[in-house]
Structure formats: C-alpha cells, structure tokens
C-alpha cells in the first residue's frame, strides 16, 4: 500500500476538523446578529478601561532573570536521573556530574560578576 493511501484517513480527519471549525466560525459570523457599541468593541480587561498601547515594553531584566531561571532549572533536571542511577555509574559518573556542576558554577559566577543578577542598577 502506498504512503498516500496509508495516510488518507488522517488527511480526511484534518479536513473534517477544518470544515467543522470553518462551519461554526463562518456560521456565527454570517448568521449571528451584530449590534456593536463602543463598550462592546473595547478589549475586555477586568472591567477597567484600557490604558496605553498594545505593545507593553517590559524591562529586559524580566527576560534575563526568566531565561537564567530556565537555564539553571532545566539543567537541574539532569541531576534527577543521575541520582537514581548513581550507584551504577561509579566514579566516572561522579566525575561527569562534577564537571557538569563545575561548569554551571562557573556560569553562575560569570553571570553574577557580569551583573546580570542585580536588579537595581
């Protein structure tokens, strides 16, 4: 059986899904009654009037902190499986993880001294 025939059902599922979505969306848009008022056209924001533009500029420190958190957090994930298998890995495993942690440590020192962790400047 060729690949096209093999995946034809899947394609049909996609098409049907798209068709259903389109039906509801278009149906709502075409059939539904519209009565726009100024209040209704406002973006919903917890009952308060909106202020300012759409693109709010956050300070870069938020991103910096967030990414640093993600980096160290994700790297900590590696330690779990290592800990589970610690006995079997022996000294080589210990050395590997030590190297990993030293690298993280150096990175931390670097980030620290570079001032990336300072909130007030």
């Amino acid at each position, binding site marked *: 059986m060729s690949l*096209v025939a093999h995946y034809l059902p899947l394609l049909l599922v996609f098409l049907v899904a798209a068709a259903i979505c389109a039906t509801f969306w278009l149906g709502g848009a075409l059939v539904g009654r519209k009565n726009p008022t100024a209040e209704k056209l406002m973006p919903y924001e917890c009952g308060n009037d909106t202020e300012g533009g759409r693109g709010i500029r956050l300070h870069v420190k938020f991103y910096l902190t967030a990414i640093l958190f993600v980096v160290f957090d994700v790297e900590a994930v590696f330690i779990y499986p290592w800990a589970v298998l610690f006995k079997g890995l022996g000294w080589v495993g210990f050395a590997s993880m030590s190297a990993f942690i030293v690298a993280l440590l150096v990175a931390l020192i670097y980030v620290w001294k570079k001032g990336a962790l300072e909130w007030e400047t």
Partner: protein
Amino acid sequence: MDALLHRLEVLLPADEFTLLAVILLMPLLGAFVNGVFGRRLGDQAVSLMGLASIAISFAGSVVAFALLAFAANAAGSGESGHAAAATTFVWRGWEWLTLSARAGYSVPVEVAFSIDPLSAAMALVVTGVGLLIHLYSTKYMEGDPGYYRFFSYLNLFIFSMLVLVLGKNLVMVFIGWEGVGLCSYLLIGFWFEDGANAAAGKKAFITNRVGDFGLIVAMAMLVYYVGSLDFGTIAANRSLLLQDLSYWPPWNRLPLLDWMQTQSDWSVLSTVHGWVTTPWHASVATIVALALFLGCVGKSAQIPLYVWLPDAMAGPTPVSALIHAATMVTAGVYLVCRMAPVFALSPFAMFVVAFVGVSTAVFAASIALVQNDIKKVLAYSTISQLGFMFLGVGVGAFAAGFFHVVTHAFFKACLFLGAGSVIHAMHARIHATDAAQDLRNLGGLRRFMPHTHWTFLASVLAIAGFPLTAGFFSKDEILYRAWTSHLAVPVPDGKIPGTTVTMTGWPAWGPSVLFWLGVAAAVLTAFYMGRLYLGIFWGEFRGWRIVRRFRPRAAGHHDGASGAPGAPLEGPMPRESPLAMTVPLMVLGALALVGGFLNPHQLAVLIPGFHFAPVDDFLAPVFATAQSFGEVAIITHTEAGSVLAALAVGISVVAALAGLGIAYFIYAMRGGTPARELAERVPWLHRILLNRYWIDEVYQEVPIGTVDTLASAAVWVDRWLVDGVIAGISSGVVRVAGTVLRLFQTGRVQVYATAMVIGVAGVGWFFALPHAAARAFGDDDTGRYSLTAAPGLGYGYRWDADGDGAWDSDGFGQVRDVRFTLERERSRTVRLEVENAFGLRSMRRFEFTRPKVSRARPAAGRNTVIEIDEAGGARTVTLPDGRKIELEAPSPAEEGAR
C-alpha cells in the same frame, strides 16, 4: 679560463644547477623589497636594489651561458662533428601538483627549471637588455612619485620572464606567461590617473586571455595524449601526437540532425546533413600546435590579436622598450621554438604560423606608414617585425627566427629608448604626452641630441636591413629560408598512422608567396623607418620656436602650452639626455650595428666557402629533434647554390635601399610633399591606413558589443524576474500567512523566510516526485543497445522494451536494465515507467535508431591504452590500430645530461 669553467662545472652539476635559482630569485627579491619597503628606502636605494638584482641575474646568465658553451664544446670535440643532443642544465625545485591523464595515469608537475642553448640565449637577452633599460629608467623616471613601484614591477617582470624562459615544463612557462602579462598590465597602466592608460592596460590583459585559452587547451591535450608537460618528455614521446583526432562533429547525436536524416524528400536537408556530419580529421599534433600558436598570437601581437600592442604604448617608454619590444612580445616566438618538435610534426600548422606571420608583417607595416605618433610607429613596427620572426620559425628556420628575436631586441630597444630620450627632451616644454611624441611637432633634433641621433640612425639602418647591420643578417636569412624551405609530412606515406587520413602538406605555392610578401614588408619597413628618422631628426624643428638661453618667465610652469602644430611658441632648446640614458643607447646602438656578425651567413655570397655562424651552431642541437621524425627528414632546405642565395641577398638589399631611398626622396628632398599629394589623390587609402583598417572599431562592436548586450540582458532578468517575481510571490505568501512575520517589518526577513520555504519545498518536491531517468548505451556497429534506469528509493520499474506500445509486465518490478538488438535502419521506442513510494508515476520514452552507416565515433572512443609498469616507470601505449609503443621514462640522470 678553462680551469675556472671546470671548477664551476664541478660546483654546479648539470642535474642540480642551483645557479638557476639565483638567477631567478634575485629579481623576485628586488621586486619584493622595492614593492614593500620602497617608499621608505628612498629612490637611491630603490635604484640600487633594482639594478643590483638584475646585474647579479645577468652575471648568473653569463656564467650559465659560458658553462653551456664550454660543455657543448667538450661534447662536440668528443664526438667530432656529430650533432650532439643539446646540453641542458636542470634545477629541480619540488613536485608541485599531480594531474591525472588517461587511464588514471598521474602526471606530476614539478617546479623545475632548465637551461639549454635556446633558453640561455634568451635569458641573456632578457637580463642584458633588462639591465640597460633599468639603468635608463633611473633617469627617465626620476622624480616620478611611483618610482619604487615602477622598479618593483620591472623587477617582477624580469622574474616572470625568466620563469617563462627557464621553465622546464609548460606549467612553469604558463606561470611566467601569466606573470609577464600581469606586469605588462600593471606597467601599461602605470600612470593610471589617466583613464585611457588604465583602459589600455585592460585591453592588453583581456586580449591576452583569448590567447591563453589556446595555451590551456594545448596543455590539456598534451596531458591527455602525451601524459606529460615536460619539454624533454614531450619531445621524446611526440610520436603519440601522430594520432587521428576527429574534431568535427563535436557531438554524438543531435535530435535535429537525426530528423534531417530521415527527411529523404528534401534533398537539401540530407545534403546539409551529410555536410554537417562528415567527420573532419586532423592529427593531434596539428590541433596542439594551432592551440599553442593561438597563445603565441595573443602574446606576440599577431593578426588577429595584435590590437592591444599599439595601445600598450601608453606605458612609460622604458616599459615599451623592454616589454613591448625586446622581450615579452617575443615570448610567442620563443614558445614556438621551444615546442619546435611538436610544431614540426604538422606542416599545416607551420604554414599557418608562417602565413600569419608574414601577413602581419605586411599589414602592420602598412599601418605604420602613416602614423604620426612616434611610439605608435614603433609599435606597429614591432608587430611587423614579430611577423618576420614567425615567418622564420614557421618555415622551419627556427635558429634564424630566433636570431631575429635577438637582433630585434637590440635595435628595437634602442629605437624605443631613443624615442624616450626625444620625448624626455620634448617634455622640457610640451607637457602633453601626446603632443610631445607627435611627429608633426618634431624635426631637426639631430643638432640638439647628437648621441640620440646617431644611435637612432644605427638602429634605423639595422631594422631597415641596411647591408651588414644586425637586421640585415637576421631578416635576410629569414627571407632566404622562406624562399627555399620545404616542410615534409613526418610520415612516409603521408597518412596519419593507422588511418586513411591524409595529412595536409606544405603548399607548393607557399615559398614564393611567403617570400614576396616578406620582401614587400621589408620595403615598407625601410620606408616608414626612414620617414620616422627623417621626421624626428632632419628638417626644421616644428614644435616651437627655439630661443637660445631661454628662461621661462616667472613661475608660470608649463602654462598648458601643449604646442599645437605650427603654433609660434617660444621655448628652450631640447637638450641631450643624461649619461644614464645615453649609455644604454650607445650599447644597444653598437649592438644593432655589429650584432649581425654573430650569424653572418650572407657573407658566403661574397666570400665563397665562408662558414661562420656561432648562433646557428650553438642552437643547432636544440632544434635537431625538430628537423626529422624517425627516418623522415621534415624540414628540408633547397641548397640551390650560391646564385639563388646571392639573388636573395640582392633582393633584400634592393628592398632595404629602395625603402630608405624613397623615404629620403620624399621626406628629405621634397619635404614630404609627394606623400601629401598621394594622400590627397587617394584619400580612401590614406584614411584606411590612418584609421588602422577600423579593426579596433570592429572589435569594439562585435565581440565586446555582444558581451555588453548579454550583460544588459542579465541585469534585466535580475531586475524583473528576480526582484519582481520573488518579491511578488513573497508578498503574496506574506499576505496569506504572515501574521508572525509581520512583527518584523523592519527588514525583509519575510522574503528570506519565503525563499527558504520555497527552497525546502523545491527539495522536497524533487524527492517526492518520481524520476524516470536512464542511461543509454549503444553501439551502431553491432546494433546492440541497452538502457539502465537510475535507482531510486522505493521505486518500482516497468518497461516497454520491445516497442510494441504495451508494457512488458503489468506490475512494477525491480528490473533496472533492458537490452535489445536492432537491425540497420530500424528504430525503436523504449518506454520506462517508475512508481515511487508515494504511488506517483513517471514515464519516459527513449528513441533508438540504428543508422545505415556507423557514425564516426569520437576520438576518445577509440582509446589509446596506456599501461604503466609501476616499478620501472615504463609505459606501454597501445594505439587505436593495435600497434604498441614502448615508452621509456627518461631517468633523471639521462635527462639532466641532455
């Protein structure tokens, strides 16, 4: 003296002649030091560096020359008059690269240099004349802001020229060839502030590329057919060049032609078909020689590639003297001499060389008749004299042709330097370069510049062929040999071995045509040189009114008075140039007068039984290989007795005297009136000559115009297709799906991403679609044909091999090959269909027709097989006709001794 040479010979063994490295590297060192540190060193040190490096190189060449002569003498006395092989000293540097030839045989290319009588003589001329011109330049270029640059380029030129001359293989020669081209380009455009000069440099460079193409083709063919680029090996194995090469038609089959063949109704078409598909044959030697000659035509400014040389006069005059008269432009002649064993195998190619040469000689001389720029006259004269040299080598008189290279180096360098001296003097007042070298602004200078005048006169006499001057001996020898030489086909039956193809021979009308055209060129030469000389040095000074003890008023420096002809300006006297400039003139002038006695064959007419020809004897071993091939003497020479020789000498003398006499009559006795009257009476002729037959304009229009048009077309495509369509598509794609990308409107990152998407889609599309591709193999002789389908991942194949329109099997299988046999004049359509993993199918038809007669197969098909014995290096070559040739690889010691 002998003891000293003995010592040197022990110090520098023939197979490791390290002196060559010194000769070569000194100019390179000079170029490097002057180029990089020149500005800091100051002009004095720069001149010293430049001169010293060339002087050492020259001294080395003299030593090498002496050793060669000494060794040749020793060999000659040992074998008592037997024509010994040419003595060669070799310096092997290192192996540079390896090329692969037929049958995987690898061709090592060495950085190696060798010196034999031919290259020694050439090296002497290059370094000797180069030294004089360096000396001259120290004064001529004095005060130029680019002084150090000039000397750096000049030294680099000498280096490249020596590489060209001393190279042991064609690759080294090619490197030198390109090097001198580069230096020529740099030096022509030396005063690049003037756009015209830079354009002239570019023109020289581009024109030479056309010629280089020929050289590259020749090298590739030599690698392919001989398996070597080394001169010694090429000469030793040149029998391999006597193969048949069917160079037309260049294709195996063309659909259009196949269709034409089937149209039996229209006889025109089948006639055309027969005409177009008739194979043309030539020996490989002919094609190689002609390709080499194309390179020579470019470098040595022959028809049709001569156009760059007159423009090249834009460079400083010493450059014109050294590069565009004495040395670089003669490289083509040198290469023909060097490759003489190959050229001699093809009388047809030799005739082309001779004919192109003599035509150029006449053509360029006719243009030189009416030019007013003195350097332009000398430029056309150089082209014309180069034509003489090619005439000489083309008729097999290699030594005579080369001797003309030497004498021409003397007198033409002297003429150019003399012209430079005149221009130098004129620059005292006329600052516009063009006006300073316009014949109409000169005249009467013999009173002011006696040294320049006498040396110039000596050279004029020499180039005109006045009896007993250098030019007389060399030119007369060429004309005499043109008249009496005959070149035989190198094989006894006149057929290329193993074929029925007749080799084109030397035409019966050849000698007389070549001779009389040569004589015509000689008359013209004598005439225009007389006109030039008289115009510069005789009569009244026409540039401005000379005031004795003139002092320029105030500081108004050369106030733009460019001295229009006849304008009554006043100015200082032209003064003789300083010693550094006149000494080279005197040396060269003296050589121009007496240099001919190095090879005075013609004296035999006066003194019966006279034989004194050191140059011929010295060079004879080099050209011995070319003289004959196996048992066949190729270059024969009618020794028609002294009457004919005397007649030739007589005609030559009359030609020289007639030309000079007419010039004297017209320009000295009648003040040029007859010439003006003739120009008025036959204005079209004058216009043609003055405008140089409009060749430059034609070149501008045809090839250059074509390139320009193509370039504009490319720009158009870029603008409308690339910018328009890509931008259009991308904007469309962006409008459909570009919400995310729209955030980055600042650049055109959308376009980039779109291109990537298109790229991925294209790659995927190619992979996803099936491709019914197959390679067809066939043999019209036996009628067996086969098809092999290209393999594809997940493909199934089915065939219609019998051509009945139905598939051979219903399903798709894994059979990838089909074979079948056809009768003569039958056709068959084979179909192939493939189905790929996605269930998509693709079909293709393949048409097969077995012709009535077997098509001539391309030459590569009838392969010459080369077997290599790894241990001994010996090679067995099986020629197409089944003959076997054993090639012994020359052992290093043997080769060194040669």
